[in-house]
């Protein structure tokens, strides 16, 4: 089957799945919210109106106001940016570093493989969020640093997956042929092995965005991620928990946003996985 055909089929199957399409629509809505936040948000997210703090939902403030009198809805809309940017960036960082090391470990084998594999096992032994928390002590917080931290702490999965991929592809005749032609190792890796393992990489990336966003929200909730005054969903829940009695909407809605976005990202990821797998597509 031609490469082009394969992608067409994948996209076609993806479009045919109602659940995947529905979640894709929701994700796109969140992306639009993030991009057009200044247009959509009814108020400036950092404008503090001390005259009307901790109000419940009303006509002027749809989700009420926080303890500084800032509009909760506007802050949630701006918070979408933080979640999406960090989620996507961190996954890209994890993917690039993890795929590279996995490929090197699988291709060269021997001592290189041993060193990389043992290191990754050590990283996997520490729960991801705890590793990320320890790294915030080194890198500090902020959007860029959080993306790096979450990327580093979740790269071990890519290494493992890519290593396994390379081990099976390495045995194929065309790699042997490429070697006999005198191709350099890195050329073989990037030109021939990498393109042939692109679908598991895509599947893993789509499935990781959701969990990365969850981790970011968790770090911000604990006060180790995005800090005031930048609006992020996790830190909003953290601020709002002190005022649960006065305006429960303030603390609870950002959490619902995290959940809805993550659920939709995961369902979309499942759809992508099914669409890329010929067995699940019902062809074999």
């Amino acid at each position, binding site marked *: 089957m031609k490469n082009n055909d394969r992608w067409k089929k994948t996209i076609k199957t993806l479009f045919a799945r109602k659940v995947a399409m529905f979640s894709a629509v929701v994700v796109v809505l969140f992306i639009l919210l993030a991009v057009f936040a200044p247009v959509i948000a009814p108020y400036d997210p950092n404008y503090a109106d001390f005259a009307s703090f901790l109000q419940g939902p009303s006509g002027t403030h749809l989700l009420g106001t926080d303890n500084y009198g800032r509009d909760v809805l506007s802050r949630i809309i701006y918070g979408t940016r933080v979640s999406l940017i960090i989620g996507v960036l961190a996954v890209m960082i994890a993917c690039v570093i993890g795929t590279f090391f996995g490929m090197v470990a699988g291709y060269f084998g021997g001592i290189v493989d041993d060193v990389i594999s043992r290191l990754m096992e050590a990283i996997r032994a*520490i729960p991801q969020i*705890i590793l990320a928390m*320890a790294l915030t002590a080194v890198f500090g917080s902020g959007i860029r640093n959080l993306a790096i931290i979450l990327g580093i702490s979740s790269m071990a999965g890519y290494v493992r997956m890519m290593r396994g991929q390379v081990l099976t592809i390495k045995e194929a005749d065309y790699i042997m042929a490429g070697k006999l032609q005198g191709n350099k190792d890195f050329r073989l890796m990037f030109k021939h092995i990498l393109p042939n393992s692109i679908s598991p990489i895509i599947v893993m990336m789509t499935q990781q965005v959701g969990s990365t966003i969850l981790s970011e929200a968790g770090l911000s909730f604990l006060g180790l991620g995005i800090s005031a005054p930048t609006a992020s969903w*996790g830190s909003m829940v953290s601020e709002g928990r002190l005022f649960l009695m006065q305006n429960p909407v303030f603390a609870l809605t950002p959490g619902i946003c995290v959940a809805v976005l993550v659920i939709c990202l995961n369902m979309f990821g499942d759809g992508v996985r099914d669409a890329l797998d010929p067995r699940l597509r019902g062809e074999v």
Partner: protein
Amino acid sequence: MTTYVAKRTGQMILIIFLISIFTFLLVSMIPGDPVYAMLGSEISQEEYDRVFYELKLDQPVIQRYFSWLFGAMRGDWGQSTQFHMPTLDVLMERVPITLFFSLSAFVISIPLGILFGVISAVHRGKTADTVVTLIANITACLPQFWIALLVMYIFAMKLGWLPSYGFTWFSQDPVLAVKQTIMPLFCLALGGIATTTRQTRSSMLEVIRQDYVRTARSKGLSQKKVIYLHALKNALIPVITILGMRLGSMLAGSMFVESVFNIPGMGSLFVKAIQSRDIPVVQACVLVTALVSCIINLLTDILYAVVDPRVRFE
């Protein structure tokens, strides 16, 4: 079997050794002067020098690492800068609480998860399956701190049935202890139930299709016997492999639950230590967590080899 266990134990020790290097290096990587980072910049020169030598900063990194490692093995984990007492003493107060919550949530969530997973797989495509799968998928995506907050809002603030924060050991005040434990434990167990349910369901569906299950059915065994005596045994093998990860995520989840319910466990200690740059405590928390997950991983690997002899001859 003995060789297998020995090999695994050796690998675990190597991994713990690597983690100890990592946690130690973490401190050297912290930007700025470590003495100022610990004590703030408003200290006298004498004080600076004293701490500088106390931390052995005049020695090369490798030497410092080994003196730290040997100290840690003897139980000298350094002095906590925020509590002004030995790190080990601080940990001794906190770690049992976190282990209590993580282990109880673990023990509760595994059988429940397996039960729901089996129900859902056996009734594949029916209402029970749809409901279980839907709830499990949604719960797995909910932020744990949010569930904790919601439960606290409903049961402590609105209904007033349970106290909203604190921790008491059962031996001190049984009634209060149970009341204070219900909500945190529920929140912690929920995520575990959801993940175990999903894992059990998918591996059960794999097994049910196999020939030996059909043979068991065709020789006239009842549905219950086929499912619980024949299919479940094999379906549980992949579930065992994720048990280690489950306990790791319980330890991590405990961080959020402790933060919401104000429980003085290792999780809240870790957060505070990071915020106040209390390096010895940060190191100790990472090491203890890694140690616990490594031991659990080793135990599950051994268990795995016991139930599935093929693994031993890998």
